[in-house]
């Protein structure tokens, strides 16, 4: 069934969109990533104008994250205190990110920078997680106990706060910095930032994986809601019809994802996410390296003029 999208002004298959939403929703519920880093390139691929894809994607992430976070709330795997600290950092970061983005836009080549950002971050994070979780799996096979949490430099900083749900007593400075950093990247790359947030919470802050997912989703809801409003009021690029189709698939998928997530062990969950992150990274890297079949591209009038 073809459906005409009022803002994107293209006609696409409704079932295709429902399916895409569903798949990304499953990933969202399982890993606590918004799925934007996966969905946005997919939307470009099926012919949605990039500006509309990025803005609408933000709106869809709100829905799937909200659905996911409710499931986590019920299991009490959301660290609200940590989420709030990250969120404050995230909003500051997003504001800085928008300024950087506009500066780069005036210099041209912003597309390239966004792609390079994707390749570098997805590559580094994916590889790190892959190696780490592989090691963890081998260790559990051998029957050895996982290494005790080490008290590094993170624990010597001031402004300590107790994060009961995560079982941590650490300074608010590292989570705040993580929040700001993710906010900046989220604004530049047009994603929720879960794929950076999740590993940062696990490896930098030492939070337990089960809590990380819900907390990340909690923070993503607010950042993407903010982004949606910004896009809707400045660029008029949020396509509600597209969003509804994606999110119907997405919210259902997120529920299944959350269920699947509880069945898998933490390191298995991480290795799957790592493989997926690396796959997207590889695809984007190939696009940059291989000779494209069409050297020319069209940026149509109204939005692409500046």
């Amino acid at each position, binding site marked *: 069934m073809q459906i005409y999208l009022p803002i994107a002004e293209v006609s696409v298959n409704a079932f295709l969109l429902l399916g895409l939403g569903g798949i990304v929703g499953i990933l969202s519920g399982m890993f606590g990533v918004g799925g934007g880093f996966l969905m946005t390139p997919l939307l470009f691929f099926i012919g949605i104008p990039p500006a509309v894809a990025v803005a609408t994607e933000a709106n869809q992430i709100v829905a799937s994250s909200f659905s996911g976070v409710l499931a986590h709330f019920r299991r009490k795997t959301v660290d609200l205190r940590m989420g709030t600290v990250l969120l404050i950092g995230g909003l500051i970061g997003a504001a800085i990110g928008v300024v950087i983005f506009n500066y780069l836009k005036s210099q041209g080549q912003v597309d390239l920078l966004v792609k390079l950002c994707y390749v570098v971050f997805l590559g580094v994070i994916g590889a790190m997680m892959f190696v780490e979780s592989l090691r963890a799996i081998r260790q559990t096979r051998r029957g050895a106990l996982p290494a005790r949490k080490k008290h590094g430099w993170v624990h010597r900083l001031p402004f300590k706060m107790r994060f009961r749900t995560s079982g941590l007593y650490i300074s608010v400075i590292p989570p705040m910095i993580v929040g700001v950093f993710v906010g900046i990247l989220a604004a530049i790359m047009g994603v929720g930032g879960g794929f950076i947030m999740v590993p940062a919470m696990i490896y930098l802050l030492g939070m337990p994986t089960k809590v990380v997912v819900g907390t990340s989703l909690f923070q993503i809801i607010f950042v993407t809601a903010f982004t*949606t409003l910004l896009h809707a009021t400045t660029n008029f690029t949020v396509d509600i019809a597209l969003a509804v189709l994606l999110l119907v698939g997405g919210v259902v998928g*997120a529920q299944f994802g959350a269920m699947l997530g509880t069945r898998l062990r933490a390191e298995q969950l991480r290795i799957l996410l790592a493989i997926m992150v690396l796959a997207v990274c590889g695809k984007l890297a190939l696009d940059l390296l291989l000779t494209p079949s*069409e050297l020319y591209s069209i940026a149509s009038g109204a939005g692409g003029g500046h």
Partner: protein
Amino acid sequence: MRLLALALCLLALPLKAEEVVLGLSRDKVAITATFEGSEILIFGAVKREVAIPDIPLDVVITVAGPSLPVSVRRKDRRFGIWVNTDEVRLDAAPTFYAVATTGPLDQVLSATEDLRHRVSIPRAIRSVGAASMAEDVENFTEALIRIRRDQDAYQLLENTVALDEQTLFRTAIRLPANLTEGIYPTRIFLTREGRVVSQFETAIDVHKVGLERWLFTLSREQPLVYGLMSLAIAIAAGWGASAAFQVLRRG
């Protein structure tokens, strides 16, 4: 420009023994939520007060979508990766353009007439001042035409206008699903030996209706309300799915 057109009309007046009487299968195209494109039948007759001249008549029909500025970018290899290096901004390129003719376009219409009436696809694109942006502007306009032709947005339909007895003509033009809203000027040229002997112009009105119309207007006129509505729908859908699944799991 208008004066020139008027002068041309006056000059052409004594020669204008043939006129177009036109019919359209529809002069309004409504874009609904399930819009899948539309086929428009363009038909008509040549009204004349004199005998049919010996030189055979040809018909050229064009349908154009609204013209918008367009940037065409070209990638080049820099430090091993492909980056957009050159950009050419074209002042106006139609979002849709179809030319249907009774014969090969270069035979039914001379180059000068093409230049004057902007009939062929390359002529329909306005690129004043583009030459200063790159050395090979033609490559960019060619790329634009190539890409849009692949999307069915630009169509060159030679030999698709049927002409009976030098009087009755008809053709069908398929509008793709990805249409931009606006007035689509439709022109009919009668030509002899490549010269335009008569011209007729009308318009097809393409617009969104119903929910499509309402959403589009709201997003432009009340962006904040629209944005909040999008968020409300997202939150409601997220909550709804979560609640529904909980019921399912318990039941």
